[in-house]
């Protein structure tokens, strides 16, 4: 059993992983869509990456908490390092939202609600992860990772909005 303490980053990664798995299921169950297998494969790969990121974030978060509790001088460095994982979560969740957008536009009508829901879920995860990047880099607001995470969150939001359009 892992001794890592999960935080919002892990939760965001897990939520986005579930969203990606939903996309994979929607794509696999859709008939008559030539690119369905390809989208299913991409969504499955994204889900695997997000599962790994959930674990990595828990480890990074645990290390940062330990530095905080011990009032270690390493804390700013630990916090900056801890921003790398949520940045990857934001990017990967944005891709999950994009895959969900493609699925929402092409899937069987009966499955569309699942694809739209997946896009919304992945977008929310990307917003949460981008916020964590900002929070971890409070001492370095000009760090380019803040802008990169914000762009990923915007991409995810755009994809989710288009998916919602497809579902309405």
């Amino acid at each position, binding site marked *: 059993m892992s001794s890592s303490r999960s935080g919002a980053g892990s939760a965001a990664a897990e939520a986005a992983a579930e969203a990606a798995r939903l996309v994979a299921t929607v794509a696999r169950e859709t008939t008559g869509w030539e*690119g369905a297998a*390809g989208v299913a494969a991409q969504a499955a790969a994204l889900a695997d990456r997000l599962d790994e990121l959930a674990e990595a974030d828990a480890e990074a978060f645990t290390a940062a908490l330990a530095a905080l509790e011990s009032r270690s001088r390493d804390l700013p460095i630990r916090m900056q390092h801890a921003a790398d994982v949520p940045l990857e979560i934001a*990017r990967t969740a944005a891709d999950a939202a994009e895959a969900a957008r493609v699925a929402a536009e092409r899937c069987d009508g009966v499955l569309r609600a699942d694809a739209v829901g997946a896009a919304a879920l992945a977008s929310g995860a990307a917003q949460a992860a981008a916020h964590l990047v900002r929070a971890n880099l409070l001492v370095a607001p000009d760090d380019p990772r803040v802008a990169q995470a914000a762009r990923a969150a915007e991409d995810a939001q755009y*994809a989710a909005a288009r998916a919602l359009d497809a579902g309405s």
Partner: protein
Amino acid sequence: MGDDAELVGRCLRGEQQAWNDLVERYARYVHAIATQGYRLRPPDAEDAFQDVFLRVYDRLGSLRDPEALRPWIAQTTRRVCLDRLAAAGREEPSEVEARGLDETIDELDEAFAVREALASLPEECREVLDRFFCRDESYRTIGEALGLPSGTIASRISRCLGKLRERFEGRNEPARESGRSRT
């Protein structure tokens, strides 16, 4: 697999470059069987590697079906590895271990076939698949690198996966082993 038949023909005609191509094509495959399948130690794996390609060089003319180059090299590698284990005083794999070994070699065969199919794709497909599945790059990063809108990347990857599947299924017809009694 037409490429292997052509390669064998070039080797048998004495083209030096063809031998280089053969070694390049199968080097990782042979090494993977020795290290992942038979778990040879690095120096033994290196010796096995040399032995395999020496035998291939000496006996390629005995290969009855040039299309069956890959299974023939696999069988040659297995025999060389067993010889290495015996020479090192290590026991041959038990029946249970042998089943695991077969599975490992099946996986290596599949990986090899995917790699060959991937190599036969157009450059733009190879690149986009490599960036997404091997380098874990995001759609945005891929789009920026290739000068494409990121909203088109998922569909492009799907199209390329479709092509890969066609090539893979075309190449992955079971090949018969040939010439095994002569190794």
